[in-house]
């Protein structure tokens, strides 16, 4: 009994001391989550948005060039810049937080399959409002994919169609809309949001780390794993749905877009600076810190190995996922399985190790 009492006394004493000290003691091995947020914001997120916004500006310039002087050359340039911008978007899509979240950037930029019938009716009537949520499947890069590649069978016919006033007006509205959204998000990040994001370094469900890691995983699970591979290969339906691939009309870019997205995901995990070889504070480092602290296995190794396995499974696929689903869907399903394994490693194991709550109501616990 006395032992228990003295144990309590010492416990109470520890508590009393630690809270009356006033000065927080610096601990050398404490992982600095604020530094991770700074690395994410300054070296990854903002540079990625800058690159995206500049690619979108190029796309807008070539759209203007095309509409003033439609030709197969200007069409080719527009298509090329569309692909550059679409690819750059894959590096920012996962950051659906703050400004991107408030404008629903992903929903207004990359919803596919696009609704070709709706696009045609908008073109014909000239009566549409792209800020309405009901029009998300008639705008963004997938809608441009349809306009630039799917409106007719040959390039010459497409050129004729897009040269008409109704099509070229719609084309310009789509590009303008993408441009507005991208520059709005970038300017907010460069304005006050960067500091809001970095300073919200707490541990609650609404803190930046908690929220962005949830957004990151949501993106990985929904957009990358399910959207790009799972849904077209029929994982969620009775039969494969080959027409749900990204880049359906251009036919040759779905794998390239996928790889851009997967690489961006891996780079974020590793804290790799945008278009650079140097790395900073990251989920990988955080996991390594915790494994050293608790002398347990380093989960980040398993996650990175699994990313590599997914990459090599995807390298077996045709550039055109539509063709892949139609010819040999089993390879798509294999790629899906490899992607799926990392959902478990990240959502179950990593979340537990980092003590990140799956974002739900801040309800009481036991």
């Amino acid at each position, binding site marked *: 009994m006395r032992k228990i009492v003295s144990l*309590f006394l010492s416990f109470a004493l520890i*508590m009393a001391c630690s809270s009356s000290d006033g000065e927080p003691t610096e601990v050398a091995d404490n992982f600095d989550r604020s530094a991770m947020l700074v690395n994410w914001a300054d070296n990854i997120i903002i540079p990625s948005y800058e690159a995206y916004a500049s690619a979108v500006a190029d796309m807008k310039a070539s759209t203007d060039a095309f509409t003033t002087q439609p030709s197969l050359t200007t069409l080719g340039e527009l298509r090329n810049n569309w692909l550059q911008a679409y690819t750059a978007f894959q590096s920012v899509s996962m950051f659906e937080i703050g400004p991107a979240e408030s404008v629903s950037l992903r929903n207004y930029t990359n919803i596919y399959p696009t609704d070709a019938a709706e696009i045609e009716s908008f073109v014909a009537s000239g009566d549409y409002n792209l800020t309405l949520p009901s029009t998300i499947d008639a705008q963004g890069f997938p809608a441009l994919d349809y306009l630039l590649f799917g409106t007719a069978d040959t390039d010459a016919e497409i050129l004729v169609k897009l040269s008409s006033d109704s099509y070229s007006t719609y084309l310009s509205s789509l590009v303008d809309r993408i441009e507005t959204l991208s520059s709005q998000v970038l300017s907010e990040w460069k304005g006050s949001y960067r500091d809001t994001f970095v300073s919200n370094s707490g541990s609650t469900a609404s803190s930046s780390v908690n929220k962005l890691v949830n957004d990151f995983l949501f993106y990985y699970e929904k957009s990358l794993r399910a959207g790009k591979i799972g849904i077209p290969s029929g994982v969620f339906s*009775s039969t494969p749905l080959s027409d749900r691939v990204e880049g359906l009309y251009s036919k040759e870019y779905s794998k390239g877009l996928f790889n851009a997205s997967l690489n961006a995901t891996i780079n974020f995990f590793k804290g790799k600076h945008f278009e650079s070889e140097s790395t900073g504070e990251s989920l990988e480092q955080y996991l390594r810190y915790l494994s050293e*602290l608790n002398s347990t296995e380093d989960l980040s190794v398993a996650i990175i190995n699994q990313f590599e396995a997914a990459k090599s499974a995807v390298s077996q696929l045709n550039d055109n996922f539509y063709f892949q689903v139609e010819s040999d869907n089993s390879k798509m399903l294999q790629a899906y399985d490899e992607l799926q394994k990392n*959902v478990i490693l990240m959502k179950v*194991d990593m979340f*537990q190790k980092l003590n990140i709550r799956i974002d739900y109501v801040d*309800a*009481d616990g036991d």
Partner: protein
Amino acid sequence: MRSGLKTYFNQNTEAAPLAVFRIFFGLMMFFSIVRFWANGWIDKLYIQPKFFFSYYGFEWVKPLGLWTYGLFVICALSALAVAFGYRYKWAIISFFISFTYIELMDKTTYLNHYYFISLLSFLMMFLPANSYFSYDAFKRSEVRHQLIPRWTIDSIKLLLGIVYFYAGLAKLNSDWLINAMPLKIWLPGRYDLPLLGDLLQQEWVHYGFSWAGAAYDLAIPFLLLYRKTRPFAFVLVVVFHVLTRVLFPIGMFPYIMIVSSLIFFDASIHQRILSIVSRWAKIPFNHFGNGNSLNQKTWDSRGFKRKLIVGFFALQLLMPFRHYLYPGELFWTEEGFRFSWRVMLMEKAGYANFKVVNKSTGERFYVDNTDFLTSFQEKQMSFQPDFILEYAHYLKEHFESQGHKNIGVYVESYVALNGRRSQPYINPEIDLTLQKESFKHKYWILPFNDEIKGL
């Protein structure tokens, strides 16, 4: 022995501690419900979801749509009436029923604290908590008693003691004591706390908190019972619960426990509390001090209440051990985990991927859980077998109503427990639609690849 028990049950004691307990309990419950409402949780937890997880045998208890708000109104008003001792008997019955109904509506929100409140209010239905310092006692002299049976107050102490002591017993396992899990996961996550944040990164602190927590739970009922250690014990209660409040998202519970533990103190302290309240609220306090004692013969004729309470406690003492009837690791299967004061013992996370198969054609597809469940429900479902089973049956019904035929539902699931690497959880070869919920062991839970030693 028998005569000892008989004298014990005939002893009387001052009613003041029970009156103070009733007042604080009622007020705390009232504010808990107001807080729950103000946080928007009624809408988020009981109105928004499409599907609700039921307790076995209580499938008929469901949220009432917008009438659910009415249920919370009834519950809050009953709590206030309990506090004031206004038509106490009906108030506490109505509180018990409405509160328990709310808790039964969706298993997702199960908390030991809520279960504790249900049990406590059940117990209070049989206690003369309105004998003293209540509206009832003020108005009706036949209700007014300064002395009440001693066992009625002791029963609340016993329930509190069980909660603490069993919570302590549950901590005597290798994960908690040897590995300092799950505190080793939870505490470093609170790095942003002023003063404590850096300390919480230290391994010795994780062990210190684990061991001190277990010792606290086991010892506190006795320290509170023993007069000489009581003031010290109360300080511990306050320190412990304030600390848990700071470290974990734990709601009103710490305050409820702090206030409840006042019942261990002598009547004189409660008299003082009541006289302060009287002065402040201008209530003629002396009106209640009539020296009358409650006549047990008429109040509890044939000892019905007493027997019921004894049976209630026998059940409470046994329930937490029911997991011995099941094979396998308790933390893994969770068979016998709930209703046993196993508090804060596990950091468990899972992932459950449901596959719907047409058994005649072999066609199959996976389910997007977010189509049916809130993220909170999905999280809770993913590591609890009874949730997984109920959800699988729901999926079968749903897809059958969409015209699918010969449906089988399989799940590929992974669970990580207390920092271990995730491992497969449910046998993926088992068609869950052929399994029925029951109290029997669920053989389709895959075995746990590790061992947790302890009670």
